[in-house]
């Protein structure tokens, strides 16, 4: 029993550990890559092409095979093969160089988009996955759900109109609501608007928007707009974005002279000894947690103040409807309040 060397035992152990890590680490593990490669069959390629064509046509751009190869993450040869097959099946046709969707192809593309957006809605409302994972998970799911499963999912979710980014979800019959509004950089200084859509592609820019803690559905007021930066106030905080980032936000200008509450703030900004009244809960708080907050009395008109400060910085306890309830900072930032002038 004593004729072994602890060093070799350790080496074997760490060898196995490293191998397991390489195989199974999240997303980049060899096992997952192999699995993905194995599964990226023709159906996936065709559906991804359809989707890209749909988006390009919607934004009024022409597409040829070369653009597709650049945009999609598949081998050149496989894309060409897929396109050949698609034109045989009457999904696409060539108009000179440009590739276009047939009626049938258009319908198919809408079905894929419907699944994608419904699944994002599902992830947002019924699961705990973080926002920046929704898109990738929906990308994988859109190829898996059948027609019936999709309709079942839709009715379980209550046939929602929009996905969590504000994109309209096509109905069963292919009806699609319009996104109203303009890109944020086109908004003149001093105008007031509501954020109706946050584009989740490209990922780099989307992550930047998430990091800024910008919420869909919130009101904003532009205070500076030039080529280098766009500055706006929203919910008591100031945001500064580069125009390229800001153009991923769609906003709906508010025409009427709404009593725009200059002093709307987030609950997270409330100080000790200040009194406030709740205006509402931001659209960013969804599903179970939103339901729970409503049940606890975080509804429009409730008076609120800080009851206890936390020794470690968060969560603070808030006194609402006579009960002391502790909320973490990220939750408090999704509750909108109007500070009262005088403390009670």
């Amino acid at each position: 029993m004593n004729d072994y060397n602890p060093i070799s035992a350790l080496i074997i152990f760490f060898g196995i550990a490293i191998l397991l890590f390489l195989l199974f680490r999240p997303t980049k593990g060899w096992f997952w890559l192999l699995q993905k490669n194995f599964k990226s069959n023709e159906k996936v390629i065709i559906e991804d092409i359809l989707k890209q064509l749909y988006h390009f046509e919607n934004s009024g751009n022409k597409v040829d095979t070369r653009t597709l190869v650049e945009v999609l993450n598949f081998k050149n040869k496989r894309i060409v093969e897929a396109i050949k097959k698609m034109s045989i099946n009457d999904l696409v046709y060539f108009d000179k160089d440009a590739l276009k969707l047939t009626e049938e192809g258009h319908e198919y593309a809408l079905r894929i988009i419907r699944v994608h957006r419904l699944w994002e809605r599902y992830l947002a409302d019924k699961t705990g996955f973080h926002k920046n994972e929704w898109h990738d998970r929906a990308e994988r799911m859109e190829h898996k759900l059948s027609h019936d499963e999709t309709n079942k999912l839709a009715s379980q979710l209550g046939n929602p109109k929009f996905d969590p980014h504000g994109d309209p979800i096509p109905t069963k019959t292919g009806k699609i609501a319009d996104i109203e509004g303009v890109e944020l950089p086109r908004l003149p200084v001093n105008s007031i608007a509501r954020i109706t859509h946050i584009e989740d592609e490209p990922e780099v820019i989307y992550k930047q928007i998430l990091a800024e803690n910008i919420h869909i559905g919130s009101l904003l007021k532009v205070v500076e707009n030039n080529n280098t930066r766009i500055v706006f106030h929203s919910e008591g905080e100031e945001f500064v974005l580069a125009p390229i980032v800001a153009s991923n936000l769609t906003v709906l200008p508010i025409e009427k002279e709404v009593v725009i509450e200059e002093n709307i703030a987030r609950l997270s900004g409330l100080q000790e000894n200040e009194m406030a009244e709740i205006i509402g809960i931001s659209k960013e708080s969804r599903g179970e947690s939103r339901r729970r907050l409503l049940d606890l009395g975080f509804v429009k008109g409730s008076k609120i103040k800080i009851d206890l400060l936390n020794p470690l910085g968060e969560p603070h306890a808030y006194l609402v409807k006579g009960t002391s309830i502790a909320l973490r900072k990220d939750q408090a930032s999704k509750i909108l309040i109007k500070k009262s002038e005088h403390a009670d």
Partner: protein
Amino acid sequence: MSKKNIEHIIELSNELRWQIGDDFHDNLTEGIYADAANIVRDSVQTEKGKKRFRLDSKIDKIVTSKTFGFPIMFLILGVVLWLTIIGANYPSSMLANLLLDTIHPALKSGASNIGMPWWLDGFLIDGVYLAVAWVIAVMLPPMAIFFPMFTLLEDFGYLPRVAFNLDNLFKKSGAHGKQALTMSMGFGCNAAGIVATRIIDSPRERLIAIITNNFSLCNGRWPTQILIATIFIGAVVPSSFSSVAALLSVIGIAVLGMAFMFLTSWGLSKTVLKGEVSTFNLELPPYRPPRFWRTLYTSLIDRTLIVLWRAIVFAAPAGAVIWLICNIHVSGDVSIAAWLIDSFDGFGWLLGLNGVILLAYIVAIPANEIVIPTILMLTVLATGMSGGEGAGVMFELDSISATGDVLRAGGWTLLTAINLMLFSLLHNPCSTTIYTIYKETKSAKWTAVASILPVILGFIVTFLVAQIWRLF
């Protein structure tokens, strides 16, 4: 109603739902609260000028203050644990005296008087009875002390403040502040700690709390830790420091358990539990004087007795198994136990343990309380030394030094002791706890994760410690 009509209604409802939009729930809840407020205004009268929450907010300011909050918390937890561990010694030894030293011999002589065959007598009295008696003697007193104290704190309203103070730490590892409470409850009994996770209403955080509860050293494991630390770790320092060294090492193991709890919570929330729904909120109820007798009664009935009953149900067959493997022989003279010990020895040695310890932990899955008696009995059996009570009869020695002598004769070193302490912290939960996890999660998958994850961690940690130890 004709089918066409129904379809029309469904169509209409879908259309209307589309129009109502997303704010429907908000408006409904708002309406309910507005109505409730109206009713309250009409029918409830409040005394004017009476300031509410006065005493409460004063207490709250102290127990959640930056200076006093944490010392108060550690002091209370320390006192509760100290009272439990020290206080339980006396009733435990009385129970052991009664059940093990008085009733057990009496049963044995009674059995021989009525001419019971040796195998039936051994199976029932040395196996089943002894295991049950042991579990009761070791388990009942600490639980009967710990749970009422804990429940009193809970009833008073202090525990939610602990969760409030600590939430930020738990948030960093993806868990809920209330896990501080279920973790502390786990120091009493993991099964009770897992039942207590019902206070966590967010599904993801609750699962984390359930799976990591086993990293709290429970009452069944404290005595093992203290005994082994006293024998082996106390011996390497000058004798005047030996009890301090033993105490510190046991505290070290408990703290290590908390570190593993945080680490595992973090890992779980980042990987397998990522998709579970997470909602946080923590209500801080007003303080109230605890209802002493009622609390005492409910904590004894709801927590202590239920857990004890489950433990007994699982301990009885374990006792039978222990007796059987020592008394059924394979290939001539070798009992199943000796054969198993022999085959586990190689793997055990790799982990810095030995075959006896591994076998003891397998047969003692039903209750951590019987690990030490089983180890002693198996050591005597494996080494063939004199002493002990016979094959399959668990025993404990009166003096700590005599226990140490038996273990050293079994080939134990300081490394074995340290790794046993680590393995006692990091191994599968007892079967009562596993059963409770299943009852609470209703999921075979999470039960399996909760059972297997700690034992894999235990293997890895003891293996690494053993290899590094042998390098020097």
